């Protein structure tokens, strides 16, 4: 078989830390090759080496059989290697077209030829079924569309070898479907793909072979059809991983969160939450299922006091918290795992210890009469580090240096530790490996079993189905239905999320159960 890319015995060091230690990856022409490993295993590093962003300390790279030094991304581009980075490499205030042509701009008499470029972008996107608006600004478009722009960037340059670094982490299931379709189409065009993802099912679905790395070392390459998710997980983590999180039945008691006719506008003044009703009780996990952009963010921000409520009422612990200051709401018993952990969850330049105190620093015993007690802060931080298995060099390390998974564990530790009556968890496992996901799910269920409530917002149906005791489906700013995860299929849920009335597709039986289980007030 012909290898388009061979990375042989690659070694990459950061200071004294070896991120890639003797890793070999061979990419066949026309295959989708998955690269699997825990958070921080060194996948992105390896790909950045291939793309010329990092120079390896050892090993060699062969492109189409020829030994090549990829000294910078330009070289990679010229070799037909394109990369869709884990964190998007898009200039937010430029348009789609501008982002795509950047560095390789068509000119007309020395001027940018935006018109023709946009036309070409439109052509390529049509060719591959990628729906984008060439003139839209990046900051105005959805994450899914941004993802497609990233892909277009590589295709525009005629990339034959595409690297996708966790492309599905922040996509909705629908968008993931689309993306998989696109990848398949690219393969039929004769292109080759390296795909990094933590979602084993995706690997099983689309890849031909899988290379597994663990803690910087290559474990080996397996053929997808000869393996299964359990085996892959074991290879990757080095131990058995449970997939279906074990949980007993829920025992909901009194209502903790009550939302009535809530209306919220987004930053542009467009109504995003349009008369929403929702109720969450102690001792249950309510999952909010919905397609991105149906008002989830605005709903969370309204509950947590970060966004003005236009009308309606929010009650927490039977206390009216509508329009209250975030801190007052937090003190009324709310915990919050924000969806953007870098922007909202952590102060990256603060130490792990400071971050652990970010929500409670102003209270006793962390501070007293305006004076901080950093000894107690450190003690608390160390407790969280231990209890939540945050892998860090210590509470003094800046949060920036933690891997995403560990950053997330830190946030969850901080929030759960405050023992809130209601925990809002927004996309709590985005981008995490299966081990970390397992851990976080356990913690959420523990919370419930301790008689607390959890409101889970997630775009991953798996997660919502696995964890929730009830699923509230959000569509166009309203909860359109509340269903039981045990008695609903993913397909049904998907249709609800797409805005279809349940009568149109569900049999009577399911419907009855839903109504029994759900809180009547929630259902319109």
């Amino acid at each position, binding site marked *: 078989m012909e290898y388009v890319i061979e990375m042989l015995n690659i070694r990459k060091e950061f200071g004294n830390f070896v991120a890639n230690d003797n890793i070999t990856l061979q990419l066949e022409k026309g295959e989708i090759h998955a690269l699997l490993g825990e958070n921080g295993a060194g996948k992105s590093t390896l790909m950045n080496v291939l793309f010329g962003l990092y120079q390896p300390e050892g090993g060699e790279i062969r492109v189409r059989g020829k030994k090549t030094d990829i000294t910078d991304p330009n070289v990679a581009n010229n070799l037909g290697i394109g990369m869709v980075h884990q964190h998007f490499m898009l200039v937010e205030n430029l348009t789609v077209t501008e982002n795509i042509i950047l560095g390789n701009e068509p000119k007309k008499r020395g001027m940018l030829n935006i018109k023709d470029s946009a036309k070409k972008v439109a052509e390529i996107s049509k060719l591959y079924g990628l729906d984008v608006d060439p003139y839209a600004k990046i900051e105005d478009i959805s994450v899914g569309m941004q993802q497609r722009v990233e892909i277009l960037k590589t295709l525009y340059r005629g990339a034959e070898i595409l690297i996708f670094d966790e492309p599905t982490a922040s996509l909705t299931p629908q968008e993931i479907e689309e993306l998989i379709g696109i990848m398949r189409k690219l393969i039929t065009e004769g292109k080759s793909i390296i795909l990094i993802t933590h979602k084993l099912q995706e690997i099983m679905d689309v890849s031909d072979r899988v290379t597994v790395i663990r803690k910087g070392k290559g474990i080996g390459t397996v053929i997808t059809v000869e393996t299964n998710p359990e085996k892959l997980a074991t290879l990757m983590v080095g131990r058995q991983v449970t997939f279906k999180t074990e949980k007993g039945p829920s025992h909901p008691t009194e209502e903790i969160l009550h939302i009535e006719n809530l209306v919220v506008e987004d930053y542009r003044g467009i109504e995003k939450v349009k008369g929403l009703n929702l109720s969450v009780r102690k001792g249950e996990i309510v999952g909010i299922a919905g397609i991105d952009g149906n008002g989830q963010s605005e709903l969370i921000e309204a509950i*947590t006091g*970060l966004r003005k409520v236009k009308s309606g009422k929010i009650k927490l612990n039977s206390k009216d918290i509508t329009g209250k*200051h*975030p*801190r007052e709401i*937090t003190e009324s018993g709310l915990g*919050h795992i*924000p969806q953007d952990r870098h*922007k*909202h*969850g*952590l*102060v*990256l*330049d*603060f130490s792990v210890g*400071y971050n652990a*105190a*970010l*929500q409670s*620093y*102003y209270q006793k015993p962390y*501070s007293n009469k*305006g*004076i*901080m007690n950093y000894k107690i802060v450190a003690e608390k931080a160390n407790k969280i580090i231990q209890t939540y298995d945050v892998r860090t060099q210590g509470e003094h390390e800046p949060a920036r240096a933690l891997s995403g998974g560990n950053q997330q564990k830190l946030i969850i530790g901080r929030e759960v530790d405050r023992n809130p009556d209601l925990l809002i968890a927004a996309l709590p496992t985005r981008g995490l490996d299966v081990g970390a996901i397992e851990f976080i799910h356990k913690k959420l269920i523990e919370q419930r079993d301790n008689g607390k409530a959890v409101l889970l917002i997630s775009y991953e149906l798996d997660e919502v189905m696995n964890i929730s005791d009830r699923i509230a489906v959000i569509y166009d700013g309203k909860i359109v239905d509340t269903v039981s995860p045990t008695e609903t299929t993913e397909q049904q849920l998907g249709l609800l999320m797409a805005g279809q009335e349940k009568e149109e597709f569900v049999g009577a039986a399911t419907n009855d159960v839903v109504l029994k289980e759900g809180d009547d007030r929630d259902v319109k």
Partner: protein
Amino acid sequence: MSNRVINLLVPIISIILGLLVGAVVMLFSGYNPINGYIALWNGVFEDSYAIGETIRQISPYILAGLAVAFAFRTGLFNIGVEGQLIVGWFAAAYVGVTFELPAIIHIPFALLAAAAAGALWGLVPGLLKAKFGVHEVIVTIMMNYIALHSVNALIKTVSGGNYKTDPIKETASLRSEFLANLTDFSTLHYGILVALAMVVVMWFILEKTKTGFELKSVGFNDHASQYAGMNVNKNIVLSMVISGAFAGLGGAMEALGTFGYMATLAGFTGIGFDGIAVALLGANTPLGVIFGASLFGSLKYGAGNMPNAAGIPIEIVSIVIALIIFFVASGYIIRVGLQRMNKKKGAK
């Protein structure tokens, strides 16, 4: 070499490099660098008088540096230290001239007035930033000019048309016979103690208080801070106010110590702008500011000796100072060099 040693070596090497390049400049313009540097050294350390004057020069630099550094730690760039210092100078002088009080009350009162005036001058850009999102750099630049013209007018008003205020009352003065005798009649005054006390205050606020935690948090990530229930706008205003208060006290050094009055200013004092360099030389930490101010103040004061003792134009000294700042700022490249050397040694 441990990281610690490298951290210590970087500024030292920067200074040496700056002096070396300065020496080359002197050589090329036909001056003897050794004479030059001896003159510089003597200008700072020759006798108690020189040391006294050097310390006197350092005091306002410390306060200006603290002002810039404090704002920086909260993510704000206060170019308005100059203006805040000017209004602080005036306020201290006014209180020093106008009131009859025992020293034990008079001095603190005058200092407080200076701090308050500086704080007020910082409040305006702080409020505008918090309320309207107006960039603080531009407002503080404008506030500098407003301070200059307003204070000049005020001096005339309070002095009955004179170009300077009366001398402050003895009871408000930071000068002392003791210090004067100690340093052979230098203008050294107790302001240095005020400056050092403020270093401790800044350290305390940032490292020990709840407010400091919030200020730093807002400086690093205002979104996360808001999520954590902090009042970002309040912290922006507070930061500018505290920064302005430090700057105002810098003005009090001039009013109550160095000059003992305030005269119409024909232009900016420059201390506020130099404070930017001082703060950044000191990596925006309280202790670092002492280092930055000492370096800056010594060079500036010692430089005065070079034309006279070595016949070297004062501009050359400014060139040397600027070069040192360049090298300290470019510490990264020195660090890289040190680490390379280190590695090579380790490999052997």
